[in-house]
């Protein structure tokens, strides 16, 4: 059975440490976001951590939501691309083809999770980091869109290995994204939603805290959030509940 890759992010476990952000940056050759880039509002972060404040001082609490691409099953960003630079793979990944992309930025305009990024400038790394780039991931030139791929290079690698190994099916845990791997509290779980035995499917199928961000748009995202358990403030904030 073809896998359908998905993610569960348990907000109760998230501490907002930003390890996922750093891991993603390193794994996927995301350009360095300098201060100038931030001030231009052109930073690229394939996964980012949104922070909310809840309550009034002194009873104030910080809330965090890590936001990668949702890989919607009916992604609004896909059909607007005139050149098929973004499409849906059979494995449920919202794919970005850098070579085809001409940079109309329409996909970003029509993405409501704000997880598509445009290379306004040619990306540059300091000399010392040139050997740090991940050889499995292409470096994007200026003028193209980029976004979270669920670490497609790792998935491909694992699938290749499995094929070589008597064409066996992938085992759960064989593939992991950089962000999930780096998460110290295991708030992010990645895996095959179609495999009922996988950890991610088990959580997704059993939880009563799950919700999807902007579910009312009907795009059916592949990332499931688990509500924070908070006896003092039962209501969820910011995001719409499913």
């Amino acid at each position, binding site marked *: 059975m073809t896998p359908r890759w998905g993610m569960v992010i348990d907000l109760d476990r998230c501490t907002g440490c930003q390890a996922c952000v750093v891991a993603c940056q390193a794994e996927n050759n995301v350009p360095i976001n300098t201060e100038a880039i931030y001030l231009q509002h052109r930073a690229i972060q394939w996964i980012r951590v949104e922070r909310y404040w809840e309550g009034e001082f002194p009873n104030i609490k910080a809330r965090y939501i890590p936001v990668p691409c949702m890989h919607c099953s*009916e992604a609004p960003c896909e*059909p607007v691309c005139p050149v098929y630079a973004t499409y849906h793979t059979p494995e449920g990944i919202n794919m970005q083809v850098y070579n085809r992309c001409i940079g109309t930025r329409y996909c970003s305009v029509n993405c409501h999770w704000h997880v598509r990024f445009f290379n306004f400038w040619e990306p540059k790394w300091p000399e010392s980091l040139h050997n740090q780039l991940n050889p499995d991931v292409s470096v994007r030139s200026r003028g193209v869109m980029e976004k979270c791929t669920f670490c497609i290079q790792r998935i491909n690698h694992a699938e290749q290995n499995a094929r070589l190994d008597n064409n066996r099916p992938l085992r759960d845990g064989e593939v992991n994204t950089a962000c999930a791997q780096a998460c110290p509290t295991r708030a992010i779980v990645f895996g095959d939603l179609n495999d009922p035995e996988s950890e991610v499917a088990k959580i997704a199928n059993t939880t009563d805290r799950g919700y999807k961000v902007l579910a*009312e*748009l*009907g795009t059916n995202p592949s990332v499931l959030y688990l509500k924070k358990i908070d006896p003092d403030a039962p209501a969820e904030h910011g995001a719409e509940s499913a």
Partner: protein
Amino acid sequence: MASSHGTTTHNWHRPLPKVWDLPPQRIVADGLRRIREGGATYRLLLILCAILGVVGVVALIAGPVLAGWGERQPWTYVAVTFGFLMSTIGSAPCLSVATRLVRSHWRRPVNRLAEIWAAGMIVPLILFFLLVALLPNTEGRYSVWFGWWGAPWLWDSLLMVALVVCGYAFLYTAAMPDMAVARDQAGPNHNGRFARLARGFRGSVQEWRTIDRGVAYLGVLYVLLYVGTMTIIASDFILSLIPGNNSAIFPATYTVQAFESGIALTLVTAGIMRWRGGAADYLDREQFFALGKLQLALGLLWFYFHWTEFIIWWYGRTPRETALLKLLYFGPYFVPFAIAFALMFLAPLSILLWTRIRMGIAGPIVAGALVLVGQVFEQIRLYSASFSNVDLRLRELDFIPTAYVPGVWDILLLVGLVGGAIGLGLVTLKVVPYPSIWEVTGGLWLRARKPFYKTEVVVIGKPE
């Protein structure tokens, strides 16, 4: 093949526009003929319409009124009748205003036929008052009123009353000079009535200027009120009764399809008048050609507006939009939609696309008649969907209500009340001369057939 004269698929010899080679006295006589004596056909039609009207009223009382104002669904066909009448007899006068504004030279014998329908507006007005009572408070549901005081009842009613009053005023002002003609010429039986109506109109330059201005201002006001009223009706009686539907284009769609059927109504009326009303000398190819062109254009617009709504929903694909598409287009009301699509868009397109047919007389009339039939189904689709039993406080349509199937009373109500409104139009023909004596006579001077070297041309004067 240099200059072959043999084969032909298209001939550029078109008939010249008709120059009314009639003496003014003839026009007066024609205009007053129906006032002096209605004729057998006319009387028969009138009786028929009266019977239909009575049937309609009975059905109205027996059905919805007895069912009371608690539920919306029994009132579906009252609303359908209301919508149909508003879209047809309500919009016909707009055609006359538009042609006056652009000073179409072909308008003169047509205008009165369009205006006369304003006389039937009393029927939709009554139905409106019955229906507006059904509207719930705007609190807790979505509407364009945003909790404004008195909404929706007060403002809807004000607009509607203003529209109807304006329609009657427009009809009356445009007919006033002819009333004076009738007062002086129609004979002793009618003197008193027309003397009162004509209000001492003598035809001085000053009076003519007043009439000109009055017709123009009232006409423009009528169109503005009409568009406003249709917007409000579309929003209060249809959109806000379907949870989740905030299609901003719909009031425009509703108005455009009303204009389409207004033209259709005028076409059909003109056809009947030419055929049985003794107006063959006035209504000629030119009129039907021009009206046919408009009918075609509006038919295409019908499609354009519906398509625009559809394609946005199709692309949006949110659950809300999917539900609306199902409810309004492809679900329970697919059949009325398909019929409306065929008769309001495909029929005018396929009939009137051909210049040959437009140049004829039957083609445009048939297209107009088909549009009118299509309009009935369009209204059925819209009001059946919006008068379903749905909780209006819902944010979105979570389930698709089943189709409302009309009963015998519903059909009788629709047919009867429409017949009644037609009857009112017929009665008006007894009071308001057709053809419009002052306008057609005024047009006499502005057309001439002149020899021009080896041919003859029609010259049309444009005093402005």
